């Protein structure tokens, strides 16, 4: 069997090896290629003294069975000692379901960073910064800077009871009021990206942008 595509990248680092698994291909292809590389193409490199191995799945969401199947192949090589398994995809999956609640006040010069989604109860003052890999929902006034989807998630939104920020950022897009935004009403609002442009809308329209969020339907 010959494998032409390269879904499995083996990198040498100072104190071991990193196995990078492509996160766009089928999982089966990963197993085949890994097996092939370990038993054929890279056989001579991978035999010998004990080597520490870091496994990285990229953004792929892997189930426990899939993970075990893959790690079993690695374990068959006695000299490969699995040191860490990095599955950010799994963490994101857990985090999107959850929302962390924080309370207090972000004052000028203070930075609040959170991995995942954040519900912040309190004000963010001018000069203060809130950054988040997911959504930022603020029960209070947003007068400072908020950066949602800081790791590149363009689906992230920023909502605030009183949205009067010095600057808003979602993923790579930076926007500042008022020249880039249209006239708004004074109800709770949220900011989102549409075609790479920052948009502001009433909170009740959040569903149109993010249909994946839990929807409550009254009886």
């Amino acid at each position, binding site marked *: 069997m010959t494998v032409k595509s390269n879904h499995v990248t083996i990198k040498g680092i100072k104190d071991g090896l990193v196995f990078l698994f492509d996160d766009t291909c089928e999982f089966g292809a990963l197993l085949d290629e890994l097996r092939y590389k370990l038993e054929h193409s890279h056989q001579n490199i991978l035999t010998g003294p004990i080597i520490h191995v870091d496994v990285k799945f990229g953004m792929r969401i892997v189930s426990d069975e899939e993970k075990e199947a893959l790690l079993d192949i690695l374990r068959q090589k006695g000299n490969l000692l699995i040191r860490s398994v990095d599955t950010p995809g799994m963490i994101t999956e857990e985090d999107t379901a959850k929302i962390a609640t924080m309370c207090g006040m972000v004052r000028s010069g203070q930075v609040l960073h959170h991995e995942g989604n954040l519900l912040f109860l309190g*004000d963010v003052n001018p000069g203060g910064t809130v950054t988040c890999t997911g959504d930022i929902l603020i029960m209070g006034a947003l007068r400072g800077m908020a950066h949602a989807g800081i790791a590149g998630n363009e689906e992230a939104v920023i909502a605030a009871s009183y949205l009067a920020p010095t600057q808003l950022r979602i993923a790579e897009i930076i926007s500042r009021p008022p020249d880039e935004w249209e006239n708004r009403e004074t109800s709770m609002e949220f900011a989102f990206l549409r075609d790479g442009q920052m948009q502001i809308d009433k909170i009740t329209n959040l569903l149109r942008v993010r249909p994946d969020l839990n929807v409550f339907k009254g009886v």
Partner: protein
Amino acid sequence: MGEAIVVTSGKGGVGKTTTSANIGTALALLGKKVCLVDTDIGLRNLDVVMGLENRIIYDLIDVAEGRCRLNQALVKDKRFDELYMLPAAQTKDKNAVTPEQVKDIVLELKKEYEYIIIDCPAGIEQGFRNAIAGADQAIVVTTPENAAVRDADRIIGLLENSQISSPKLVVNRIRTNMVKTGDMLDIDDVLQVLNIDLLGIVPDDELVIKAANTGEPTVMNPESMAAIAYRNIARRILGDTVPLMLLEQKQGRFKRFKKFFGMG
């Protein structure tokens, strides 16, 4: 044991020294034993505002480095027997003392005095850390300008991370007519952002400048609106409930007076 209160603001020129001098004097007026401490080393002003510049012999650095006893460095006020001042050095800079040294001095003063008012330098560096080191409470001074409010907010954040629990706010230099026309932030705007307890508001008053130049704290002159405001603040520090000064009404009365003569 006395109480040490630091007067701070972050931004310069909002009236920390004036506030320190006037609150200190007002507390002395109310019969308290007060010591003012100037921690603005290298740029001392408190002695000038108090009119005590020519009486300084030793300063805070001399005490910290053991060249004199604390009592030798204290300057007695010319108006009150129970009001003293510990001047800062004019020759060195903020790094000449450590927060621990200031803390020791303040602790020593707390045994002797009921209130120790610490005048903090502008900024958030060493000078600020020195000033807040020994303080139990803090008064944050701001003016109704965005820049001053921004800096006050930063300072409140830093204070909340220190041993000082809940700082109090003094809004200085309010111009009623400008607030009315919407050209100046009003008290509610400031409070909405800073979200701390309001200790007092002080109207902009030309008599304050005159008083500072003559070395006589404004609070001594009951004609001045600012003097009344500072006396109210001092009473609130002592725990009295004093309603906020109604700046509007004062002007209203004056207008009514003008109207009476057919001028308004």
